[in-house]
């Protein structure tokens, strides 16, 4: 079960992240010790597997998690993973020791160590994942932990901005990586690293290879702060220094280059890979090194030097020779060691001096000689001074540049560039050494610096010692690890190379010498550079660029919104119609026009007359929309013509329905309009806009007409034959429409009266107890004048109309009519009654609670449906027969009549409800005092 050590180590760290903040309540010491213990447990869990990995064996542990989604909890330990695990767990221990003394005593450390452990868990997960998706998940956890750690001192606004920037860049890169990994998985057929690594040929030959590569590189470059995504890293220096040492130099930023190394066997070997990876690496190397010298902030210098070194590693991975990859892996080790040491030294100096400005920190050698020596060793390693570890990997880099040139004919270009980069790196290392530890006396420090506590120096000492050890005894110290890690990265045995502190006098050594001498000169004449920088630098700063991009995006978003999101209904309607038109055109363009077939009936005078009336109605409504009542009248013309059209094409039922619906809605609309001023305010819409609107409306109308034409001129077969045949035997009625409504499609009708009831409920909810603004008063004050003639007329009309309604309801099943129409007719009568005598009298006579009427209607309709089930028939099955009714005679009745009655009641109740709400509304306006309340 040693295999389970891999997930256990990660689990231990993640659990520790949750536990340590709790334990920290017992004191800082407990927090530090428990964190160290957690890291130790994680190391112990991995340790039994280490020898096998060192020997070159790949250990894979797989637990099925979501197998059908291609996601297993699969872990893997090979050389590369082992190397990173050692870095993560080893440097982690030193950082915890260091942080325990570095962090201010008032900080309880629980939260700090908790996040740090979560980070370590995530990072270990990244390097130990066999499943690529799992790796992406851990990858995002590291981004998140980094975000939280950068924002640890969240009182400082720079820390907050930096944290958000870092998360946006690295988290976003993580998403790109996710897409890239999914794409890789699709190409390779599996998300397991072993399978992907084996499918290198197929991946590179796939047409989607460039997309996958770009997405993966986006993830790697953002994480490893490669140009032009580097800018988050210097800002991330707002984090406490132990975080900078751990995340932002030794481990997290290495995740990007780790990924490059991990996928090297799959993705490398193409022109695109070389161009993108080595190109980006070279630019980052030079740019970072150049800017590093110009930073006055101690940590800023180190941040840019980190960017530069990451660029170097990227460049090495991008170069097309196996040996350069070995150099890259070697430099990963060396850089982690010396840069962590440098950051810790910088933290000590910051801690002791209260500032990180190198123009004020001078002559520290006198105040803290031990720290100074340790810092100088590490800085010399960074500069590539012989006998230190940085020298060895840099020599390997120089030697690589002298190999076969990738672009023929420019054999000198790469070595020259490498030497120049070396010059820059020596220059900033020199500045770190000279400016800080020598160069006269400190300037205006808040306190007198002295040596820090011993335990703060110990981690720095260990790391600086490692620089020396690796530099002097490379083969025996890291030789085995480097070989197995390189083999894992290359996907095969590494080429022969020799690890030795001394290779004799050769060209790379000469390049180193030139770099050292040139660096000294560059540093000597840095004043010129500073002047230039001060003049031009603010123009090209990365964070500034980020802010500019962000601001530009925000401004563009606002512009877009100003155009689209105006809050104006007119604009929205126009957009909606335009979008519908556009989609319609898209469809036409996609499907192509089909020739119409089928005869067209010639137009007769009646049809032309109707057409003209329709046009007048439509244009009149649109043209006179400001004079509202008039516009409504024009709209009613349209409705009338439509019902006449139904009549002409022998659909009396539809015509009757349309007619009564039309009357009720128009009258209710007119009633509602009384609460608005008669004439709408004229808008000062420019002519251009109105013409535009007219064009949109015209295009919409023409499109609809064209579609109708296409529809009408094609052969037509429908299901109507079925309904006509089945009407009498199945539904017991000769009026097909009604039979369809109450029997064949009774379910729909039931639903529709629900909709109607809901509309009424909505009107009730919105109107009940509502009080209007004073401007409605004028219109409403004229409301209750009741024409005497109408009142007189209503007396005989009311019973007559109710009889008609009853008749229509009864005969509905066989002849045009039915519950819906009958309900509407009753509604019309009630409206008329209301207009004739007013609300008070009408409601006094009609003592019906409309809400109860609803309930009754709905219950009746639903009950009829269920009743049929009691007889073992399906829902809403109709029974029918001849029933003698007194006074009416023998009548053919179907049980669906009860259903129809339900429909009738609901329709009547709806009209009644809207009517009474509107009436009460105007009464409240007229008698505000009587109603009480305050407007």
């Amino acid at each position, binding site marked *: 079960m040693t295999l389970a050590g891999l997930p256990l180590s990660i689990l231990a760290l993640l659990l520790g992240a949750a536990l340590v903040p709790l334990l920290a309540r017992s004191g800082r010491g407990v927090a530090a010790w428990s964190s160290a213990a957690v890291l130790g447990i994680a190391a112990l869990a991995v340790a039994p597997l280490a020898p096998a990995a060192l020997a070159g064996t790949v250990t894979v542990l797989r637990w099925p998690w979501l197998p059908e989604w291609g996601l297993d909890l699969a872990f893997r330990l090979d050389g590369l993973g082992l190397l990173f695990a050692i870095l993560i767990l080893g440097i982690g221990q030193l950082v915890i020791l260091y942080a325990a003394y570095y962090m201010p005593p008032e900080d309880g450390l629980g939260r700090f160590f908790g996040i740090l452990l979560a980070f370590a868990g995530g990072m270990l997960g990244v390097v130990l994942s066999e499943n690529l998706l799992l790796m992406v998940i851990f990858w995002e956890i590291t981004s998140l932990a980094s975000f939280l750690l950068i924002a640890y001192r969240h009182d400082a606004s720079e820390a907050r901005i930096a944290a958000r920037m870092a998360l*946006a860049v690295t988290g976003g890169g993580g998403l790109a990586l996710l897409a890239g990994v999914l794409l890789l998985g699709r190409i390779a057929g599996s998300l397991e690293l072993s399978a992907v690594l084996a499918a290198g040929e197929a991946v590179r030959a796939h047409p989607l290879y460039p997309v996958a590569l770009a997405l993966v590189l986006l993830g790697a470059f953002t994480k490893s702060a490669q140009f032009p995504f580097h800018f988050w890293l210097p800002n991330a220096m707002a984090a406490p220094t132990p975080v900078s040492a751990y995340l932002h130099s030794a481990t997290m930023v290495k995740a990007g280059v780790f990924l490059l190394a991990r996928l090297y066997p799959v993705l490398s070997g193409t022109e695109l890979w070389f161009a993108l990876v080595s190109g980006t690496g070279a630019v980052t190397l030079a740019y970072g090194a150049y800017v590093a010298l110009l930073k006055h902030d101690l940590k800023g210098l180190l941040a840019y030097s980190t960017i530069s070194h990451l660029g170097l590693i990227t460049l090495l991975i991008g170069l097309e020779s196996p040996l350069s990859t070995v150099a890259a892996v070697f430099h990963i080790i060396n850089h982690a060691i010396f840069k962590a040491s440098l950051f810790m030294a910088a933290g000590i100096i910051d801690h002791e001096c209260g500032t990180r400005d190198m123009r004020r920190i001078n002559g520290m050698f006198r105040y803290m000689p031990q720290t100074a020596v340790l810092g100088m060793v590490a800085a010399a390693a960074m500069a590539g001074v012989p006998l230190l570890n940085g020298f060895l990997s840099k020599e390997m880099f120089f030697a690589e540049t002298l190999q076969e040139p990738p672009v023929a004919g420019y054999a000198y270009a790469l070595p020259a560039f490498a030497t120049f980069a070396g010059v820059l790196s020596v220059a900033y290392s020199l500045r770190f050494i000279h400016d800080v530890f020598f160069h006269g006396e400190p300037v205006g420090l808040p306190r007198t610096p002295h040596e820090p506590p011993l335990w703060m120096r110990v981690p720095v000492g260990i790391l600086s010692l490692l620089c020396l050890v690796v530099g002097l005894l490379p083969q025996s110290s890291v030789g085995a690890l480097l070989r197995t890690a390189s083999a894992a990265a290359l996907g095969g045995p590494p080429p022969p190379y020799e690890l030795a502190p001394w290779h004799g006098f050769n060209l790379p050594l000469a390049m180193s010498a030139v770099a050292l001498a040139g660096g000294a000169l560059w540093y000597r004449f840095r004043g010129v550079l500073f002047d230039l920088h001060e003049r031009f630098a603010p123009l090209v700063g990365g964070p500034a660029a980020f802010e500019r991009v962000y601001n530009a995006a925000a401004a563009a978003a606002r512009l877009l919104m100003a155009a689209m999101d105006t809050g104006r209904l007119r604009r929205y309607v126009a957009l909606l119609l335009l979008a519908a038109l556009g989609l319609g055109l898209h469809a036409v363009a996609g499907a192509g026009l089909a020739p119409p077939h089928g005869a067209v009936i010639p137009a007769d005078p009646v049809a032309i007359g109707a057409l003209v009336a329709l046009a007048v109605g439509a244009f009149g409504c649109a043209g006179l929309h400001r004079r509202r009542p008039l516009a409504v009248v024009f709209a009613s013309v349209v409705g009338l013509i439509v019902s006449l059209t139904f009549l002409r094409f022998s659909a009396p039922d539809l015509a009757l329905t349309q007619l009564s619906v039309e009357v009720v809605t128009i009258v209710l609309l007119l009633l509602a309009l009384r609460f608005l001023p008669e004439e709408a305010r004229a808008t000062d819409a420019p002519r251009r806009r109105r013409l535009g609107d007219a064009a949109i409306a015209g295009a919409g109308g023409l499109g609809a007409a064209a579609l109708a034409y296409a529809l009408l001129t094609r052969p037509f077969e429908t299901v109507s034959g079925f309904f006509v045949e089945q009407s009498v035997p199945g539904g017991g009625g000769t009026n097909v429409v009604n039979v369809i409504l109450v029997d064949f499609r009774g379910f729909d009708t039931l639903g529709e009266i629900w909709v109607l009831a809901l509309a009424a409920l909505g009107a009730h909810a919105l109107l009940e107890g509502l009080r209007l603004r004073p401007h409605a008063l004028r219109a409403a004050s004229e409301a209750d004048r009741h024409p005497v003639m109408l009142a007189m007329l209503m007396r005989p009309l009311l019973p007559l109309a109710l009889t008609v309604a009853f008749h229509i309801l009864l005969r509905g099943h066989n002849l045009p009519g039915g519950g819906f129409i009958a309900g509407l007719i009753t509604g019309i009568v009630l409206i008329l009654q209301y207009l004739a005598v007013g609300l008070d009298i009408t409601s006094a006579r009609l003592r019906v609670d409309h809400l109860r009427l609803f309930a009754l209607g*709905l219950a009746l309709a639903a009950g009829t449906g269920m009743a049929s089930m009691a007889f073992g028939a399906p829902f809403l099955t109709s029974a029918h027969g001849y029933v003698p009714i007194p006074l009416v005679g023998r009548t053919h009745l179907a049980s669906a009549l009860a259903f129809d009655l339900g429909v009738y009641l609901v329709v009547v109740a709806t009209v009644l409800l809207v009517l009474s709400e509107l009436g009460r509304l105007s009464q409240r306006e007229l008698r505000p005092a009587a109603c009480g309340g305050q407007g």
Partner: protein
Amino acid sequence: MMNWTLALPEAALACAGLAILGAGVLPRRHDMFFPISMAVIGALVLAGVLVLGQGDGAALAGQYVSDAFARFSKVLVLIGAALALTLALDFNQTDRDLARFEYPVLILFAAIGMMLMVSANDLMTLYLGLELQSLAAYVLAAFNRDSERSAEAGLKYFVLGALASGLLLYGMSLVYGFVGTTSFDRLAEALTAEHAASLGLVTALVFVLAGLAFKISAVPFHMWAPDVYEGAPTPVTAFFASAPKLAAVALLTRVLTQPFGELSAQWGQVLWLVSAGSMILGAFAAIGQRNIKRLMAYSSIGNVGYALIGLVAAASADPAVRSEGVRALLFYMAIYLLMTIGAFAVLAAMRRRGRPVEEIEDLAGLARSDIGMAVWMLVFMFAMAGVPPLAGFWSKLFVFRAAIEGGYVWLAVIGVLTSVVAAYYYVRIVRVMFFDAPGAAGALDARPASLTVVMAATGLFTALFSVAPGPLLAAAQAAVAAIAG
């Protein structure tokens, strides 16, 4: 064929609705909001239980269908409606105008409409369900009648919604005109013929698509969402962003994959544009927003764009990709529903001295005054940004995966890039809560218990989803098998 009992959940809910409506009307008292709300929540839960016991089959002359897909969607719709109503319990009671019994009843009717939508097997049933839901929604948007913004929101929603309904109806009547049937089953049979993809039919389909795109507020039919989300009372907004959206997406999925499955080449293209447009607009438009409800409106537009990636993949010729696409879509919507209700619970709790506040700046320093709420909001925001191991990561992962499997790589790339932009504004909210100093106006009021319940329930789901993703995945898998095999 008329197997009525199949529709028992809807029937039961409708009867319960009738009874509850009666109970609300008859006492003629003004404090019926709370008891009626509790009764409605009870009815919704009961309907949920009934849904779980529902069998497979078609009912009511084939107009209504019950399958795993419908049940999956219905359970989520009911959960969404119940949570959205729970959200309103305390919120509405602080305002006389909101604390009226019609509110829960409207939500109940809307829930019936949504259940019909996802069970519709006929264009008429579809329209019926949609209108039942929409009418309730129009009224809910304007429910705060004395607020000008709420009334305006309701009016805009109604006018635009009526237009969109018109488009939908127009498309449906064209479909009927060209094919001669409204039944999904017969449409599917008729459309397998070679001459199916005639110009008229494609145009008809496009109008149906436009009408439904409006309901899910997908670009370019999204314009109502920001105004309505901002203007409507917060619990109403929470409701709009959750259950109706899921129901409409499910409806769209069924319509496109079943009767119009043969026209997938046509609708696939249109949806590609709709999806990409929604993601882009959702990401960029939210950047400049100050009002958090408006921001959530754009976020929901963007989220619909991501969900639709799954539907685009469902247009693929490869059956495996099709089912993966639908599965990703359902999964996305399920997680989105719970995530978004959680976030709105936090929004509903944003009050200062009793008055609702809605600016992002009002959250400043929340971590100091109410760490619990800040943490829940952090969970929701990070989940929406797609940060693992929160639930939102999985939903994004699966839609991207479906897109890539289906060969829609560029759609996935657009999705990733817009996620990056969107992550930025989600993180901004986190930053404001945790790192900014509280404003001069003081801390927010203490949050009521009902909101804490909603936050905790959805928050725990979102945070701990990775521990046991199996059940939801299995349910989605079963649902997919029912419609896209």
